[in-house]
């Protein structure tokens, strides 16, 4: 292609090119949004009319809340929801405490073998979860912690990556603050939670959000460790609903359950959009 030809062609197709780009992006946006649209639409359709549609309709003129009522009464959706909430909160809080303490030790305290320990920690990041889950399953079973929140929470509270992330952030805080606090007679613990954590709040929140997303979507570990539906989390709950849910296959009610499960994270995402996206680009792994 010669330069002159390129120049002659350029001005006119600029708009066409823009239009094509927008068309392409809109096409993918439609692909992303359509499943969400479909589940919301189906969840408002009446059971009888849904099954009567050989060709599914793209709208409904008689929206009903019956499916949502059914999702909360026929299956213990509220229980699943509550379990997930407890699991998510428990895991996040303990994880944060463990992580902050360890990160502080690496960032501010001097001790022999610090570099060695930190290197070992970093190398632990390479251990894949699938490899250790077998023994963890045995450990938790032997401790008779199956079908308890303790068993659900314990194995997922320590995260090397988050320790690393926080340590890097703690180190950026000027050392003088720490020394001043020491002269003041402030204890390390007080300094950590009154000064360091508030200063590093953005990173702390990022870590929290990533953990919450992970917890809300976790499926494998809860599936291994719970077989009593009183301890099912939402992911296992939805699988249970799918396999022997409403007595008969009731797609609209299933979709209502799916909507209920999906909404919390989407709301959190829309509120903390910027934080979540920057957090994921720093430390996300799904994909």
């Amino acid at each position, binding site marked *: 292609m010669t330069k002159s030809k390129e120049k002659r062609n350029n001005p006119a197709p600029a708009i066409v090119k823009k239009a094509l780009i927008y068309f392409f992006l809109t096409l993918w946006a439609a692909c992303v949004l359509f499943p969400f649209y479909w589940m919301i639409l189906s969840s408002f359709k009446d059971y009888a009319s849904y099954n009567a549609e050989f060709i599914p309709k793209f709208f409904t003129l008689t929206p009903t809340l019956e499916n949502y009522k059914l999702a909360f009464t026929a299956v213990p959706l509220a229980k699943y929801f509550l379990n997930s909430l407890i699991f998510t909160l428990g895991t996040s809080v303990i994880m944060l405490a463990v992580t902050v303490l360890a990160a502080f030790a690496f960032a501010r305290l001097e001790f022999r073998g610090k570099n060695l320990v930190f290197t070992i920690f970093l190398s632990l990041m390479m251990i894949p979860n699938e490899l250790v889950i077998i023994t963890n399953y045995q450990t938790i079973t032997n401790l008779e912690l199956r079908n308890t929140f303790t068993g659900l929470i314990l194995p997922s509270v320590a995260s090397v990556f988050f320790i690393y992330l926080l340590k890097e952030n703690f180190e950026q805080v000027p050392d003088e603050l720490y020394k001043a606090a020491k002269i003041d007679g402030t204890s390390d613990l007080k300094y950590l939670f009154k000064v360091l954590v508030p200063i590093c709040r953005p990173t702390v929140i990022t870590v929290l959000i990533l953990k919450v997303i992970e917890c809300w979507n976790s499926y494998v570990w809860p*599936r291994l460790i719970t077989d009593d539906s009183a301890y099912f989390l939402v992911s296992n709950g939805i699988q249970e609903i799918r396999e022997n849910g409403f007595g008969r296959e009731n797609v609209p009610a299933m979709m209502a359950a799916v909507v209920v499960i999906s909404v919390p994270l989407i709301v959190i995402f829309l509120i903390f959009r910027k934080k979540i996206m920057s957090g994921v680009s720093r430390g996300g792994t799904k994909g």
Partner: protein
Amino acid sequence: MNSGLSKLIRKTEKPYIGLHGKIRQTKGDRLKTGGIERLTKYVSGSIIIMNFCLLGEDGMKKNSLKAWLYLLPAILFLGVFLVYPLIDVVVYSFEQGYNSASQSYFGTGIYNFSFVLHDSYFLQAVKNTFIMVIITVPVSTGLALLISLGLSSIKKLKELYQTIFFLPYVTNTLAVGLVFMILFRKTEYSEGLVNLLLNSFGMTSVDFIDGPYWAKMMVLCIYTVWIVLPFKILILTSALASVNKDYYSVAKLDGTSPSRTFFRITLPMISPMIFYLVITGFIGAFKSYSDAVAIFGTQLNEAGMNTMVGYVYDMLYGKSGGYPSYASAAALILFSIVLTITCINLLVSRKTQSKQES
């Protein structure tokens, strides 16, 4: 407290840094260092001196103990749930006929590995996983690159598109998988939406959920791509935004064609990120499991759609479970494959990068 602190800093900054500098200078001489440190603490209060008396002369010792205390929870959790299992899984994999109930076994050897490698379910799982990896990694990376290029060339509505594209990341894989299942499947009552779409293009309908192998594989791949794209778009969009704009200005001045600009400027600049995505994509795709469960249910072996990770879990738990030794052997085989492919990826990326530099 903050303002008090900053005041203190201002007051103490100079002498303190001075001391600090001295400490640095005499770092090799531990006796002296301890002396200066002791001096500092002497000024700051008698309680600390008492501590010194209690804990001995070396200030490091006290700090060391405290540091280990801070690290203790992390070390405990990581030790019990990460390091010990890693060793244990290797032990398991060589114990023949391990019984979880009596916790006994009757021999050691490589029988577990040979059992797994001859198990038709495992071979099916390996085949499925490899097909999935080979399809989804290039498709998702390519698609993500196209979308990010599109995103970075527009200004209006960019944030809206970015928000929409990110949505699959924050959804529950199992829940949305159910929607995909409904969209793709064919029942007696309804052809399903995707099939109706196919029919309108003059194609015959297929049962994507219980039908032929390739149809099932296609749904799985489509769903996987749908799930993994947000992360890749996010990474590539920020990579594209970080390319120095001067390069483009110069290229424009020179009258460089857009395709040449792309291949000579954009691609080399973002290639580290592309390699990063390819490597993490490979690892992620090899470990995929819940997307398959989301679409085909928990009985993946019957559906013929099991993945390698799924095989590990099935060996451990559920209908066919109770064989941690087989599960361990399968997990180790899986990770030797992942490790090999990651190493190859790293080698290729290093070679390409060094070629670009020269």
